[in-house]
């Protein structure tokens, strides 16, 4: 430690790993756990029942675990779980879950959340996701591994973003984005409707698919999104052809979105616990953030 008196307010009940670094003007509440090697720069606020894993970096002015911006939230003991090695840009924010939405907001590992991005109540962000500057996630969203969301995009409640999908800049996302797809407005005409504009090449590279699987996936993407005809019949054709691996997962994803409301599969979890909450929360309902530590 340096010898300058550092002003910070850490509740004595909070658990902070010995080699975590907490900068000046940080405020940490009583039910917070911060794992080893995590760095909190200046003015970082961690409230609520929040567990932060190891090796995360939070830049200036991040606020984590504040109460959700949901009028239905009744002050329950809801959680925010953040995994390992995430990087949060300046003024990034994440809220705890709500009772109706499954009690949990979860951010996985190795994600990059750039300046001003916001993860709302009951969102599930998987691993290696990139959120650009001021990306807004509304409540109850699931973002699968490897997705990239460009600056200033806003996502509607209950949207799902598939694995290794990408969303263009300044794009309103009102429906599910299938895996490995590039979803954007054409020619930056953002008054026009955004749509799938082709495969997300960097995502396909990052996923490291085998040659056969990649060929099949590209074929499925062409078949599904190259023309405007009904998606349902095209999915059935592909399934009847017996596609496997990522192509089959793509068909299943599109099928589920079609069954949802306005192209949003997760709408069916409105007012109930989503499957992720059952998976990640301890079964006995004991909300002890300390247990989530490695």
């Amino acid at each position, binding site marked *: 430690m340096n010898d300058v008196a550092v002003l910070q*307010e850490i509740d004595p009940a909070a658990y902070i790993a010995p080699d975590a670094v907490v900068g000046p003007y940080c405020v940490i509440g009583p039910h917070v756990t911060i794992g080893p090697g995590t760095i909190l720069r200046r*003015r970082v606020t961690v409230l609520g029942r929040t567990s932060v894993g190891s090796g995360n970096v939070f830049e200036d002015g991040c*606020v984590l675990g504040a109460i959700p*911006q949901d009028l239905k939230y009744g002050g329950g003991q809801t959680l925010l779980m953040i995994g390992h090695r995430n990087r949060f840009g300046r*003024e990034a924010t994440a809220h705890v879950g709500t009772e109706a939405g499954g009690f949990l907001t979860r951010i996985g590992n190795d994600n990059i959340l750039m300046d001003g991005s916001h993860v709302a109540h009951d969102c599930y962000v998987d691993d290696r996701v990139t959120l650009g500057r001021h990306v*807004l996630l509304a409540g109850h969203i699931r973002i699968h591994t490897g997705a990239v969301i460009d600056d200033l995009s806003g996502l509607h409640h209950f949207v799902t973003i598939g694995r290794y999908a990408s969303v263009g800049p300044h794009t309103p996302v009102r429906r599910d984005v299938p895996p490995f797809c590039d979803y954007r407005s054409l020619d930056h005409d953002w008054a026009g409707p955004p749509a799938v504009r082709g495969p997300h090449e960097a995502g396909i590279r990052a996923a490291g698919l085998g040659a056969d699987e990649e060929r099949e996936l590209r074929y499925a993407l062409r078949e599904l999104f190259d023309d405007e005809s009904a998606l349902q019949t095209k999915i059935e054709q592909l399934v009847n052809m017996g596609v496997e691996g990522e192509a089959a997962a793509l068909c299943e994803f599109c099928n589920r979105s079609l069954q949802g409301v306005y192209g949003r599969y997760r709408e069916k979890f409105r007012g109930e616990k989503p499957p992720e909450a059952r998976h990640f929360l301890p079964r006995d309902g004991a909300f002890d953030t300390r247990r989530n530590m490695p």
Partner: protein
Amino acid sequence: MPRISKNAIVEGTAQLAPDVVVGPFSYVGPEARIGPGCVLENNVTVVGRTTLGAGTHVFPLAVVGAAPPGSESAGQCILGEANAVREHVTVYAGADRPTRIGNHNLVMIASQIGAGVWIGDHGIFDNCTQIGPGADLEDYVRMSGFASVAAGVRVGAYSFVAGYAGIESDAPPYAMLQGYPTRVRGVNSRNLKACGFGKEDIQALKAAFRELFNGRGYKVNREALLRLADDPTANRHVRRLVAALQAAAKHGDAPDE
């Protein structure tokens, strides 16, 4: 005694009700008046001639009563009761016209409320909404993410502004507004139902909207407007809509022609 953190700075002349909570690293300026039950969390800044009504909750890193860029005089900023000002929000103080926010509003993360803005009651302003200086927002207005209202523009009561919309001229009440340039997409019936409007009222409004805006987006059908204005049997909400549209036409920059 107010519960003031030992690391907070509260100027001696600030007036705080007895049960106010001020978190660490917050600053309360000399002309601030904080009402009963207010909670200022950590790193909050309240400056200028700012009044916070009872039960206002200000979240970390929000700034209330800041002087707008380019102005040096400390303006006035009056917040009513039970408002929530979320993280990173800036509420600017108006010098010639005080910024007024009514009761039970929710201003979400990183929104900016310009100097001299008037906001009614029960508004919800989603993340990153920008409200230009001198804008006038009536009760129950709801704005989605990244929506903006230009300076000096009036938005009618019970209107819903969809994400990314930019309101550049007076918007009618009861409307769904979407896109840029912004268009009237219909009656905000879901919000009206939630606010306790009867079926009859909503049907009357839907019929009036069909006459006034059908296929014309933001442009008002002048003949329908004159006809509805002369109709003594019109529903009271329709009369309010007509009055708002007539006032907008007088305001000068309404794109009705």
